[in-house]
């Protein structure tokens, strides 16, 4: 999986949990919470969907890694590739 593919996985999850948001222009280097109406429960939803849909575990200490699309890709891409 490439980092761009990983970003798309995250965006697909956000589309499910925040269906009112326009995701057409989400900037990779800006915190997701600064661009979208997401709260802490929504981030828990992202963690849950990664677990359910992709068998990816994100320990609580690593939640900060999900702050932006870029940091998500940095953190999650190796995890996805380790699954294969």
């Amino acid at each position, binding site marked *: 999986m490439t980092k761009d593919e990983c970003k798309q996985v995250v965006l697909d999850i956000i589309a499910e949990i925040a269906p009112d948001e326009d995701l057409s222009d989400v900037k990779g280097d800006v915190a997701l919470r600064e661009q979208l109406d997401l709260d802490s429960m929504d981030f*828990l939803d992202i963690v849950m969907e990664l677990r359910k849909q992709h068998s990816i575990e994100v320990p609580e200490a690593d939640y900060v890694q999900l702050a932006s699309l870029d940091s998500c890709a940095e953190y999650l891409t190796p995890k996805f590739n380790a699954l294969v």
Partner: protein
Amino acid sequence: MALSRIVITGVGLTSPNGNTLEEYRRNLLDGKAAISRIDMRYMGQVLAGVCDFEATKYQKRKELRVGTRAGSISIYCAREAIADAGLEVEQLDQKRTGVYVGTTEHGNVETENEVYNISKFDYDTKFWSHHHNPRTVSNNPAGEVSLNLKIHGPAYTIGAACAAGNLGLIQGMQMLQLGEVDFAIAGGVSESTSTFGIFAGFKSQGALADHEDPNKASRPFDLNRNGIVVSEGGALYTLERLEDAQARGAKIYGEIAGYKINSDATDYVLPNPERQAECMRGALAKAGMQPNDIHIVNTHATATPMGDIQECEAVREVFSDCPDTHVNNTKGYIGHAMGAAGALELAGNLPSFEDGLIHPTINVDDLDPKCDLPGLVINEAKQAKRVDAILNNSFGMLGINSALIIKRFSN
């Protein structure tokens, strides 16, 4: 101490056969039921009363995903009631507005969904949703209204089995009379069509209705009735002190004249006609009325073989010599809307103050002689000489009884 007079100034509702009071009333007068066959987890198809209100009218899709059906029904009804009262949400005093929502139960739907969800993951509880607790706390439906409307006053539910709709209204009235709030949003809701447990429980009890024609399944007082059709829905009212309503020139649907809540203390599920009669008499006493002052008695009868007969005994005993008292029932149209039942059924009769029509009890093809009450209106609407007062019965499991009297407003 002279208590303030409390009046109804707005109605918001969703029922299987209508999403506004006008639509609902028209269908009641036209005899149009709206029961459908739905798929129920683990059970196959069951009969149910399902609402089709536009949930996104007042909620974002994310709110719908995070919240509950009961919350969504409550928000829709609350906002519709406020609009019907001729008010904008922004005009409400946030700190002086209270929300009082009667519920039969809450949390079954959400818990069943989560158990089903983790069953797909070998019952590993790490897949259990963090939304479970805010969804299942008892105050959820009222709390969602406070979040949606940004109301800071007291917002909570009143758990009272199927008497809850009346109890929501009574609680709202009392909080206005105590001066705790200046504006109350009160009534009852039900999301029970999404929990298999309610259906399975009634089925095990031998109390779940069945009929090849869904719209004939719920048939209170019919000799061949065979149980309850479970429904969802809601009705919330805006209540105000009379002086406040008059000061702003509000439309007044009616005035809460009296009420009574009591308990059978005899059985978990079987009603007690003696206590039910006491409940109706208590409401009459509080209203300063005699039985013949009541022109409509809306019965609670759910179409169970015994329950209908027992309520009829109680009604017959209280209203034995009342030629101008009419008796009807609403469940033939919409099924049993559980926590919403009392509030929805009252709404169906409120327009009678204006048009003098009594909506009929439908689906009575063969009237049970034990339910042949004087004044019973069946199958066709009836024009009354006048309608000045409605007594609304709502009873529930564990023997909770409620009777609420609304009278035509008059200075």
